[in-house]
């Protein structure tokens, strides 16, 4: 891609932070290429977690003792840190910690959708949506009488923007669109979609599960009304997701989960709600996970999100080129040379994706095989499943070579 050597990641150095990458299966060192499912967790984040339990663990918000004060300050500041990571100027008030991206989608679907949608409303999705948004809006639409419409995906794996302009109308109440497709690798023009949505007084929800971990994302530049992503896909722990929402929207929204911490005043008859973001964080929150996610943001920013993006793009392009050279590999999504997220989904003509993944595992090459939670897209592509290799900061070209070699072994076995 023509970037000078100095701009590349020091992958050797980075790999030292990930002891799991030293694991061997039957004498073969693992080649972990399942990063779109979950990324590995660097030592500084693991240590933050262990330190939290060894030195600071306490419940937050209302404790007046020292431990609770320390935990509270760390947990509340973690919201600000995450806000900064995605350019949310409203700081903690615009950042809600959830369990995962999926819960963030459901939060808006329940707290906003269930109350605001009606039979006259339309929700516009894309054919490449992840089940997290597709199933959620589909079911909320069923409950409210609203209609779901899907922006077409072209042969080349990009959105048909003419179709987008056609189906986003004044009837559209919400546009929910994946930023980077976890199956096709397509980088969608979310900023343009936000403009179209806003022209029709619709909101836009951006699924950032595959973008926030892998490239610089600025919610205000996109002008997203909502954005969701997961800690476990960005060097953070499992059990935490983020919902960003514009402050005035979150303020207007009814709460979604009820209980402690999210209330101001409770009587036997009724209750009033706490301020943002706590209004949406009922019960004891994901304290340790929030603090660890802030540490993951530091870790990624230290490396530099632009460099991470370039590194992944280089690996994806390299993998694409290698696989395209073989005559029997069907590759999904934008062709080599086009902008792409750091992942490649494909099928070997003679070998079912599940068999391929099982066989690759023999060479300790870990990829994913399945529908990647985009069943309707796979139906459209005419395959029940695909194999997917996805890259992160610690992957190398040599690992892509190992993948290609292992695919060749599978080809031989099934020949």
């Amino acid at each position: 891609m023509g970037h000078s050597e100095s701009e590349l990641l020091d992958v050797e150095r980075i790999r030292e932070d990930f002891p799991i990458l030293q694991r061997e299966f039957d004498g073969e060192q693992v080649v972990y290429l399942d990063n779109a499912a979950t990324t590995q967790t660097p030592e500084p984040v693991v240590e933050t977690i262990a330190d939290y339990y060894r030195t600071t663990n306490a419940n937050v918000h209302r404790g007046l003792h020292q431990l609770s004060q320390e935990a509270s300050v760390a947990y509340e500041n973690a919201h600000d840190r995450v806000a900064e990571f995605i350019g949310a100027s409203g700081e903690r008030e615009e950042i809600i910690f959830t369990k995962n991206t999926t819960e963030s989608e459901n939060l808006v679907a329940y707290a906003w959708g269930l109350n605001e949608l009606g039979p006259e409303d339309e929700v516009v999705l894309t054919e490449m949506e992840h089940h997290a948004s597709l199933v959620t809006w589909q079911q909320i639409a069923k409950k409210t009488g609203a209609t779901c419409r899907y922006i077409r995906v072209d042969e080349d794996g990009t959105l048909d923007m003419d179709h987008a302009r056609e189906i986003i109308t004044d009837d559209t109440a919400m546009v929910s669109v994946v930023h980077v497709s976890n199956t096709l690798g397509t980088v969608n023009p979310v900023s343009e979609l936000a403009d179209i949505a806003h022209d029709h007084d619709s909101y836009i929800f951006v699924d950032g599960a595959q973008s926030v971990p892998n490239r610089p994302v600025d919610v205000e530049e996109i002008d997203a009304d909502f954005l969701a992503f997961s800690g476990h896909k960005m060097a953070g722990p499992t059990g935490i997701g983020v919902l960003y929402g514009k402050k005035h929207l979150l303020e207007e929204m009814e709460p979604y989960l009820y209980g402690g911490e999210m209330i101001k005043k409770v009587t036997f008859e009724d209750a009033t709600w706490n301020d943002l973001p706590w209004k949406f964080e009922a019960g004891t929150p994901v304290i340790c996970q929030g603090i660890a996610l802030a540490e993951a943001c530091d870790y990624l920013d230290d490396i530099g999100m632009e460099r991470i993006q370039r590194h992944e793009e280089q690996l994806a392009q390299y993998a694409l080129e290698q696989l395209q050279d073989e005559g029997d590999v069907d590759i999904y999504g934008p062709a080599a040379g086009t902008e792409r997220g750091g992942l490649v989904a494909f099928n070997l003509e003679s070998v079912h994706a599940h068999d391929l993944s099982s066989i690759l595992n023999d060479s300790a090459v870990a990829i994913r095989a399945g529908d990647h939670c985009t069943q309707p897209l796979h139906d459209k592509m005419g395959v029940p499943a695909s194999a997917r290799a996805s890259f992160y900061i610690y992957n190398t070209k040599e690992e892509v070579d190992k993948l290609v070699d292992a695919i060749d072994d599978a080809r031989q076995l099934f020949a």
Partner: protein
Amino acid sequence: MGIGGSDMYRQQILDHYKNPRNYGEIEDPTFTHIGENPMCGDEIRMDVVLDESEETIERVAFQGDGCAISQASASMLSQELAGMAVEDLQAMDRDDITDMLGVDISPMRVKCAVLAEKVAQDGAEIYFGEKDIDRTTTEDDD
């Protein structure tokens, strides 16, 4: 290393996958049943002919689409079933299938391996009025 990988694809399985036995349809089967593995997209259709007493399986044919494990398992099962008592089919479990395949099946692939067995069992149960379903789908806990 653990189970899975090419251990799981020993010659016999690959052979049955590449050259499935009893592949096709039977004109007048005693019963026919279809099942799928929705997560994987594996599909199996089994045609079964019972003898007069309806206690013994005479002949089986299958058609299907999917991974090597599911298709090889169906092919091997179609051979095993010929001549087997219906009662014995009903008594088969996951272990019988792994014995038949002759390899360890990784936990995530068990669904693929047992699909054909489930289809045959459900087909028989429906025929004898013991069950009322349209299609078999493998469950996570099998």
